[in-house]
């Protein structure tokens, strides 16, 4: 799973090298940024349900047609699943904050997403809207420190860009 450490280890292994000083420097960089990431992960982990709920509400507000008959948010089951999807994305973003890389989003969220949403007739725009709302909702230092918010927003941008 992609993170700072696994990236340098895979590169060293491909060349048959012991960890060199540049490898150790890379890991050192991850350690320095870890405090901000951990802060964001802690905040998001503790408030995941509320964050996901607000983001979900925002996308349904923007696209009310989704509530019409036959659309993706028309039944209770569909609504629960939409909210669950948003929650999944936020959870994977929390994992990415912990790992310090995009591995969890890549492997468990983005890979195959396009095919699934197309086959099941789920419009991408509401996902983008939910994630964009979360992206613009955060405020430093009210929610977390500025550096932590930067890490959090960068991952939301990464998820948004993968859908657009």
């Amino acid at each position, binding site marked *: *799973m992609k*993170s700072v*450490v*696994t990236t*340098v*280890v*895979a590169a*060293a*292994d491909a060349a*048959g*090298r*012991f*960890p*060199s*000083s540049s*490898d*150790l420097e890379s*890991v*050192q960089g991850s*350690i320095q940024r*870890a*405090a901000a990431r*951990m802060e964001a*992960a*802690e905040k*998001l*982990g*503790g408030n*995941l349900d509320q964050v996901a709920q607000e983001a979900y509400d925002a996308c349904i507000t923007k696209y009310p047609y989704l509530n019409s008959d036959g659309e993706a948010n028309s039944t209770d089951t569909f609504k629960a699943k939409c909210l669950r999807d948003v929650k*999944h994305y936020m*959870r994977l973003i*929390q*994992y990415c904050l*912990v*790992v*310090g890389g995009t*591995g*969890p989003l890549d492997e*468990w969220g983005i890979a195959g997403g396009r095919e699934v949403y197309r086959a099941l007739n789920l419009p991408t725009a509401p996902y983008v809207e939910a994630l964009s709302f979360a992206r613009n909702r955060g405020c430093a230092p009210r929610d977390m420190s500025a550096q932590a918010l930067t890490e959090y927003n960068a991952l939301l941008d990464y998820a948004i860009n993968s859908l657009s």
Partner: protein
Amino acid sequence: MLDAFSRAVVAADASTSPITDLSSLKAFVAEGNRRLDAVNAIASNASCMVSDAIAGMICENQGLIQAGGNCYPNRRMAACLRDGEIVLRYISYALLAGDASVLDDRCLNGLKETYAALGVPTTSTVRAVQIMKAQAAAHIKDEPSEARAGKRLRKMGSPVTGDRCASLVAEASGYFDRVISALS
């Protein structure tokens, strides 16, 4: 391949819940510099560790370098030194990542079967790994034996904390033990 962080992520994902307890990972981050020093201590002494461990294994069992022994011609000795280095390299990766998955997946998976097919004696291999385990502990603690090293004594000079990095020594020893149990 996983590291200490993605290991926690995989565990949390099994119950589709966010990670709530970050204390152990924060401790990992706080001790990060010591970990890098420990990896450096092994990587910087790798050549000495490997040659000393293989030579020690042979001195204790001279049959290995007689005709029919598995270190007998240069070709076999070279392969043995190379294997010692490979094992130590994957252990250094595991110590850097804080997780054994890279060692398991890329080194130990199938190693016993390979050695059985080639007729490589696993008891001797285990002895070489044990010697490297002792060396790694000494280098991480920065307490190499003056009596044994003599003039070639080599200290890292890195600042070692009061407990002589006991947790990292224990972790590294665990990876060496993993190799030993995979072979036996």
